[in-house]
């Protein structure tokens, strides 16, 4: 199994408690927003999970029908689904692959592009600080309190990763900006000497 499996994420939410499509999409949005799963993508995953026998219908709920007026289908994990979930939980994780646009641009830049890249890197650094300023969470200490639901503690831990990634990005941008600035300075000094 390679990479992040959205099927297992949806399955995991149904192992946690039964749910219907829209409810699952909202739970994913709140806790795993970075997946960017749409409601229709969730329905597709539900169909596949049901076809594989990992989940089954747990009856229909008339109250709070879908927007089209159809009854909501509640799903729950089957015993096979729970087994698959446990097996996935115990599988080692792969590291995320970084596909960074600036890294690509650095690699193919012409010497004359440096001032522009420097400016772009500076803008990225400023944006990172803006993102950080918008992140607000209660003290991470709460994550160890047993009375805080685990899903909230987990969200805080994932946020902590985002924060540390931001710091790594900012430190790297700082370093390459310094290098580019110095290189630009030395290049123009060398050009002046040659002229």
């Amino acid at each position, binding site marked *: 199994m390679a990479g992040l499996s959205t099927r297992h994420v949806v399955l995991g939410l149904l192992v946690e408690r039964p749910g219907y499509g829209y409810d699952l999409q909202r739970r994913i949005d709140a806790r795993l927003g970075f997946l960017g799963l749409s409601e229709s993508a969730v329905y597709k995953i539900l169909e596949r999970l049901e076809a594989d026998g990992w989940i089954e219908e747990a009856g229909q709920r008339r109250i709070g029908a879908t927007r089209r007026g159809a009854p909501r289908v509640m799903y729950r994990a089957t015993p096979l689904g729970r087994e698959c979930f446990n097996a996935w939980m115990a599988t080692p994780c792969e590291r995320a692959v970084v596909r960074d646009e600036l890294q690509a641009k650095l690699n193919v830049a012409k010497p004359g592009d440096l001032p522009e890249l420097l400016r772009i890197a500076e803008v990225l*650094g*400023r*944006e990172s*600080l*803006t993102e*950080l*300023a*918008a*992140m*607000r*969470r*209660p*003290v*991470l*200490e*709460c994550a*160890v309190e047993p*009375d*805080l*639901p685990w899903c*909230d503690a987990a*969200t*805080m831990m994932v*946020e*902590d990763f985002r*924060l*540390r990634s*931001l*710091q790594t990005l*900012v*430190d790297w941008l*700082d370093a390459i*900006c*310094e290098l580019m*600035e110095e290189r630009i300075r030395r290049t123009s000094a060398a050009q002046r000497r040659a002229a």
Partner: protein
Amino acid sequence: MAAPLLRFDAVSRSYWRGPRELRILRDVSLDVHAGELVAVYGQRGSGKTTLLRLAAGFEQPDSGSVSFAGIDLARRSRRQLADMRREDVGWVERTGSQSAELPVLPSVALPLYRAHGPLGAQRRAMSALARVGAEEMAELSWGSLSDAARVLVALAQALVREPRLLLVDDPTAGLGILDRERIAGLLRSAAEDSGLAVLMAVPEMPAMLHAHEVRMLSRGRLLAPSEQRTGTVIEFPGSKRSA
């Protein structure tokens, strides 16, 4: 909004290494108000400590001005600056001038002996220690304290004189995640509950989440967030505090 307690106005500061000018701070402007925790992030050597030293009047800017309570520090005499540092400014750093054998309680009480007598001084020292949750360290010697405990005691030492401005240098450097959260949280409470202005330099970003304002020192420039975005505020049920 009330006038800031501490204001940097277009401050620049350079050091000279031989013939080469190191521009530590370039055109830095920053306001810190009473009741506010402002965090400045920067890597090692980014000028954070210089910023704090300028705020305490230990150094003067090459250009621009630093003012405290509306008065330009450059216009204060050395004696007035010393008075300000003793009465109005608390400087928190882990490598205090403590002797390793001196127990914590007298080391916190020391600056108060003259004004309040030994008993009054110790009583105030004890309540400062209690404020940071370090009462149980009162009898221990500085040398036997952990890094995190030293930060707490240094904070009590700064708070005991009831300053108006706290300057805190890398309080969370090298600490574990729980100690870091606790100390950053204490600094925020100090600002909110006692109306202190707190300027904190931090070497890592997670500690900044407790601050009211965040800034970043990058190649001598003090960056501010471009705009305060809304809609990404995360609220957790059962949280002790929401920012």
